[in-house]
């Protein structure tokens, strides 16, 4: 299998789906002539031309709504938000149009569209450019939400997202673009709602998605050395959520630690914490714990921004606590 970066995996997914369906277009700031601020759309302008790879002005609310309009009229737009931070200017279009048009119209208006871009903290970007906003999207009915953690998943999930007839929020990660991984040459899709058990274990279930999955795998290695066998679950799709895989694992391990880069309050992480706590009530040997970012804006200073976020050490300490080993 070829070893490629997440960036290239996403590019291939876009290219293959644009080859496959002429209604698929890519639009956003700098996606065409500049090949994307993070170079995800390299060569796509040359191959598909300015009618299908479209540079927009800095008008998030406007071009998000334009993508939605094109979608109800029959296109399958992929809208790139340069970073998910800027989607905050377009939340009304996402909540009130993308997510509700099908319902309000009694099933008449489909909205097949993908919104994608890097989500969550990178490095040295300070408060306005380091936000993990999955909670806002997962909270709203009518949206599907995906967040891959590897090149393999990135390609198969983005292709599935583009083929879906619903609005899909596709959350990438700036620091992951250069991560490498094996990707098969044959075509494949990764269906919605299927979590991936990255590592089998018997003592504790570690749950996350996107970039932090790597932290879990590294923590699991450390924990193994101390005789704690951790099962690692990568959710991949946040909504719809693969509750079965989560609950079955926790019913086996009887312990659960969730990791979420976002702020804790009303987060995807605390929601899963609630679901596991009530659905695995009779199986839990310890409280479910959430390792999230601190409930503060992101500071610029690097030591501080690292202190704000989940870390291998925080995860290990938490696992030991719920294992009554600390």
């Amino acid at each position: 299998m070829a070893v490629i970066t997440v960036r290239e995996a996403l590019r291939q997914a876009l290219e293959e789906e644009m080859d496959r369906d002429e209604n698929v277009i890519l639009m956003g700031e700098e996606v065409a002539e500049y090949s994307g601020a993070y170079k995800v759309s390299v060569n796509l302008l040359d191959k598909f031309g300015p009618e299908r790879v479209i540079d927009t002005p800095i008008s998030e609310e406007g071009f998000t709504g334009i993508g939605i309009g094109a979608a109800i009229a029959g296109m399958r737009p992929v809208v790139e938000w340069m970073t998910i931070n800027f989607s905050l200017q377009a939340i009304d279009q996402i909540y009130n149009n993308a997510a509700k048009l099908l319902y309000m119209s009694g099933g008449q208006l489909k909205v097949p569209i993908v919104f994608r871009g890097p989500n969550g903290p990178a490095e040295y970007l300070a408060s306005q450019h380091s936000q993990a906003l999955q909670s806002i999207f997962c909270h709203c009915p009518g949206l599907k939400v995906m967040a891959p953690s590897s090149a393999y998943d990135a390609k198969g999930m983005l292709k599935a997202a583009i083929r879906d007839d619903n609005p899909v929020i596709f959350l990438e990660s700036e620091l992951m673009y250069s991560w490498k991984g094996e990707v098969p040459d044959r075509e494949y899709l990764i269906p919605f709602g299927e979590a991936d058990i990255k590592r089998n274990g018997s003592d504790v279930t570690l749950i996350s998605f996107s970039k932090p999955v790597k932290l879990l795998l590294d923590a699991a290695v450390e924990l193994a050395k101390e005789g704690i066998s951790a099962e690692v679950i990568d959710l991949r799709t946040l909504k719809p959520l693969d509750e079965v895989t989560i609950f079955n694992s926790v019913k086996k391990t009887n312990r659960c630690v969730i990791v979420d880069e976002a702020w804790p309050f009303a987060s995807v992480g605390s929601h899963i914490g609630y679901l596991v706590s009530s659905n695995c009530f009779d199986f839990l040997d310890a409280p479910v714990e959430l390792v999230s970012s601190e409930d503060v804006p992101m500071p610029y200073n690097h030591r501080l921004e690292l202190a704000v976020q989940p870390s291998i050490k925080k995860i290990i300490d938490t696992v030991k606590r719920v294992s009554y080993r600390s």
Partner: protein
Amino acid sequence: METAQVRQYSKEFLSGLMEKMLLIRRFEEKAAQMYGLQKIGGFCHLYIGQEASGVGSISAADLSRDFILTAYRDHGIALACGMKPGHLMAELFAKASGCSKGKGGSMHFFDSSLHFLGGNGIVGAHIPVATGVAFKIHLKKESGVVLCFFGDGAIHQGSFHESLNMAQIWKLPILYICENNQYGMGTDFRRVSAVTDFTVMGNSYGIKGKQTNGMDVLEVYNVVSGEIDRIRRESTPGFLEIRTYRYKGHSMSDPAKYRTRDELEAYREQDPLLLLKTKMLNDGHITEEQFEALDARIKKLCDDAVKFADKSDEPALQSIYDDVFA
């Protein structure tokens, strides 16, 4: 002049305009009555007084290829697009036989088969969406034009400005129609707008604006026809301010204290139905008797709509889960 204008049109054409405007007037009167009987709930924004705006504009469109979008004051626009009074009244009655299966209500009428794409409740939010429909037409090199209706209040939403800029740089076939009924809820548009002549609104985007008298259905028809032809030819956006007036309050609960009786009376004297009827009488296109007969037939249509709505079933409780996802 006036008669000269009328002469250009066939009796059938004029009768068609009269029939549509009368249908809207009677439908809205019936809706108000049903609201009083609490068969209808929530917001209910009537189009009475503005009939010439919607009918004149949409009569100039070719709904086999053109598309219509508007805000929440959508009853008249929906009827002008050819939607059936029964399906609309049933929607107001929240019945499963309503155009949106009882889920949308007054603000959310839709009929994609008639190219009427709603019915949006967030002021200004459908303007980018309509622009996106035009974007699809442009990308697919089709010949359609989008008519996007909105009120004088929507002109201060940033998304309106973002849309005009993109419509111009991408050369999109869309006519932005501001139905200036002179009030946004209780606010006289002069109090919240830096300019009172909206035709300058397109200047920052190189879009020449036009203005027309919204009480005269033929004038509206002429101007909109001209703009649609120009847009089909040149494929560049247009902006039109239609000066009109709403006779009723903003919604059902508004006593409309913010305007004078005289102002209202002055407009009633140039009532769009009265104006057209007079022209047709003068021109020998219709007699009082024929008008009475038409009116009776239309009132019957509206009574039948109520009967249909009344005897229709409510949606099943389980349907709350339908159409969340396609």
